[in-house]
Structure formats: C-alpha cells, structure tokens
C-alpha cells in the first residue's frame, strides 16, 4: 500500500499542488481513472463558462435596449457592485453566514434522523410498510403552502427555517440509506446467518458498509436541497435575522439587478461547496473498494 501513497504524492505534484491536500488527491485520482490530462478536464467547462458569459454580455448590450438594460446587468457591474463594494459584500456575507448555519444544522438533523428512520425501516418490514407512504407524502408536501404555517407556529427565527430545511432535505437520506441497507446480496446474508450473527453485528458489519455508497449519494442530494431549504424558509418568512432568502427578496423588489445576481451566485456557490465536501467524503470512505469512485487497477 506504500505504492499508493507514492502515486498520490506524485500526482499531487503533477498538478502543481505544494502539499498533499486531500482535494487534490481526489481530483488526480479521477484524472488517472479516465486516463485524461488535467487540462482536458478543465478546458471544456472553462470554454463553456466563457461562452455563457459572452451570451450574457450579448443579451445585455445587443438584445436589450438601453432603457431595459436594468433587467440584466452586465457581469462586470455584478462583480463591481455585488462583490467589490464592501457594504454590499458585507451585507451579503452576513446573510450567507445565517443561511449556511441553517443549512448545516438542517442537513445534520436530516442525516441523523434520516439514517435512524432508514435503519428502523430496514429492521422490520412492518415499520417499513407503515412509514413509507408518509415519507413519500413528506416529500410531496407543497412546501410553499406550509412554510407560512411553520412561521406562525415556531416564529421566524433559526428554528422554523431549520424545520423547512429538514422537510426538504430528509427524504433523499431516508430513501438512499434504506436502498443501501437492502443492497447486500442474499449470499452475504447467508454467510452471516451461518455464523449465527446477531442483528446488530449484521447491521454493523454487513448492511451499513454495503450502504455507504448509497448513503453518500443521498447526502450529496440532500446537501444541495438543504441550501435551498434554508433559503426558502427565510425568503417566505421575510422576518427575523436576514439570510440569503430575504436578501434575494429585497434585491428583487428594489430592482437591484447587480446585487440580485451576486446573491444568486453566492447561494449557488454555497450549494456547490456543500456538494463537493460530501463528494470528497464519499471518495475518502469508499474509493478503495467501490466501483463508482476512485481508481481501477
């Protein structure tokens, strides 16, 4: 296994990284897997990104006449007003902090609660049958309709925003964890049965490790949803400490195009960041053995 460590260091050095930052290792692993160079992974999205920014300029300056240009401010104005003016940036970062906190608390609750529910469902067919329809209903709840209600019941602070966040992000954790726990093959269960393994041993040594890839897939979906959930609650309450949601609403109503775009970009980046963290955790825990991640020999 020393050989693997060696590979990782060499690969990290290839990409110009100065230390063994795990993220770099993950990236280079993926590169090695597909046998592609670093540039062939970065250039296509960069070109598409540049093309989209070009399209943006095109619409701002050539499609819209001067009187309607406020509908889509050019990218450099968004940067200038949204990110380079300290007061605006600070307001946005404060809101981002509030929203991130809600999203992370919500996601943590969803993960713990979702996994507990899935484990309970995996242990007893009756529990699975009883709970499943309500899980589907939970996912189908028109969140816009009940958000104001949650505000009335729990006030407009962190708690009710977290509740909205959990309602939105819980379902993928439960479904994916349950699917993962049920994914161990019959022969593997037989193997444990023949050794008279108890319920807990079976869960710990067979079902849970088998479920890990699916659990991480669920976490990645829920991570994105938790950010949306944190914004939705805040957006609709429109009260309490302002988060990204209230910022979006304010900029939209005041036609602050630059700041509105900047805020949208920042909330996207938050979602992407959470998604990447869980992708990294997945690689960390399953890349050595699971087919869908890491290298093949």
């Amino acid at each position: 296994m020393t050989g693997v460590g060696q590979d990782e260091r060499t690969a990290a050095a290839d990409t110009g990284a100065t230390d063994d930052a795990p993220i770099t290792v993950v990236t280079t692993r993926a590169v090695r897997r597909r046998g592609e160079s670093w540039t062939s992974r970065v250039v296509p999205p960069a070109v598409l990104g540049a093309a989209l920014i070009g399209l943006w300029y095109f619409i701002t300056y050539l499609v819209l006449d001067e009187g309607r240009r406020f509908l889509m401010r050019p990218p450099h104005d968004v940067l200038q007003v949204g990110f380079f003016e300290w007061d605006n940036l600070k307001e946005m970062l404060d809101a981002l902090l509030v929203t991130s906190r809600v999203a992370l608390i919500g996601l943590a609750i969803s993960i713990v609660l979702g996994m507990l529910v899935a484990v309970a469902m995996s242990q007893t067919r009756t529990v699975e049958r009883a709970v499943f329809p309500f899980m589907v209903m939970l996912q189908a709840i028109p969140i816009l309709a009940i958000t104001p209600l949650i505000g009335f019941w729990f006030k407009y602070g962190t708690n009710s925003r977290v509740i909205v966040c959990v309602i939105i992000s819980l379902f993928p954790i439960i479904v994916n964890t349950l699917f993962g726990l049920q994914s161990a093959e019959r022969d593997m269960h037989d193997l444990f049965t023949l050794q008279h393994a108890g319920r807990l041993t079976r869960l710990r040594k067979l079902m849970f490790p088998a479920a890990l890839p699916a659990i991480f897939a669920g976490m990645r979906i829920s991570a994105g949803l938790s950010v949306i959930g944190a914004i939705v609650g805040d957006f609709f309450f429109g009260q309490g400490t302002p988060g990204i949601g209230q910022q979006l609403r304010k900029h939209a109503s005041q036609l602050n195009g630059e700041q509105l775009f900047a805020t949208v970009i920042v909330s996207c980046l938050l979602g992407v960041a959470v998604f990447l963290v869980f992708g990294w955790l997945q690689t960390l825990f399953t890349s050595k053995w699971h087919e869908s991640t890491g290298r093949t020999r």
Partner: protein
Amino acid sequence: MRETATTLLPTAKNEGITFDAIGMTYPDGTNAIDEASFSVGAGEFVTVVGPSGCGKSTLLRIASGLLEPSSGTVDIDRNHLGYVFQDPTLLPWRTVRQNVELLAELRHVPSAERSTLANDAIEMVGLSGFEEHYPRSLSGGMKMRASLARTLTLRPPVLLFDEPFGAVDEITREHLNDQTQALFGAEGFAALFITHSISEAVFMSTRVLVMSARPGRIVSEFEVPFAYPRPPELRFDPEFAALSGLISKDLRGAHE
C-alpha cells in the same frame, strides 16, 4: 493443524452428514427434491452431479439449515460447518485478509489467533502476498480462493461446496480442483460438493452421486477408486475416462 481445530471447535461431535428421506416442495408448489437419503462420512468427498435446476443446491441449503426441508431430517453439526458459496461473496469493503478473518471475527475469536488462522488459510490456498488487496483488484479465480480460505479458517470438519468453480475458466478450474483435492487429502474433512462438471466430480471425489431432473432424486452412485493426492495427469487416465463415461451416461438418463 487438527490441534487448532479441536481447540477452536471443541464440541464437534458428528463429523459427517446424513440425509434421511429429505423432500422439498417450495411454497409456490415447485417440487425441488422428491426424496433423498444418503450420508457423507468423515474423510469422504461426495459430489452430487445433476442437470441444472434439479435441486442440488437446495440440498446444501437444507444441510446448512438455511432452508427447512418439507419432510425428512438431516443429521449434521451445524456449529462446525464450512459453506463455500457459488459466488465468492467477498465483502468488497474488506481486504483479502479482513475477508478471510470474517468468520473467526463473527465467532469472537481473539484478534491475535484470528490473524494466525487467516495467515495459515491464505497460505493454504496460495494467496500469500495479496493479503492487503481489495476484492475488486483480484481475478475470478483469486476471489474464489480467498472465499475458500475464509471457509478454511475455522477448520470445519464438514465442508459444503455449492458449485463454487462454475464461473471460472477451465484452466483456473482445474487448478482449483488440484488444490481442493490436495487440501482434502491433507486435512481429511467430510465434503459435500455440488457441480455439473463430471470431470471435476471424478477428479476430486471419493464418491459421485447422480441426481435426476426435478423433482430431484439420487439415481445412481459411483465409487472413485483413485488414491490422494491425485496428480493432474489423472485426468488422462483410461480408467478416469471410463468412469466419467459411465457417469455421463447416467446423467444423460437423468435428464429425461
């Protein structure tokens, strides 16, 4: 080697298997086994050959207690039983060593002893040097050997093989057959082996049973006279060919 087995598995009382009038009808009405009565004594390697779907594997599931028979009884010590599955069934998140240690781990064998047992078993199947590999980096034959090593760690006096070498190529299969019969020659466990390969059956067994198509029934029985360890060239021996021919003839009859 048997010393370890006796300390680890102190209460082995019946070193064999006896099927008494076993019948199996599944809840959906499929009659898998009509009536099977035979026994596998200590130091015997008995192979059941038969057409696909004739209930051969069902026999092993019944013997191991994974399945309750509809009628009849099995006399077997289920606490001291090795089961080699059709697929390697290695846990993909464990290295070869961790996989081989699994059964001892589930039996709460202390870690130091476990590691000795695993080393011995890995050496026995010729997988030394691959201890830290994950299953995904092993070939089909190597996975099967790891699976065999896992079963051997507990030194079970009775071993059940559910067509374990069916999915590997011919050369690997013959190699695995060589190793299995050598292990049997050295360890002297009681083995019940399921296959539909006649040459595999004759090469490894002391006795071959032919099972009829569903509902399964034992239709004939052949003693295999060759001494252990059996050399690979045995496969080209005229006597080997003659015996294989006889079994093949019965097996064709069993298809009807």
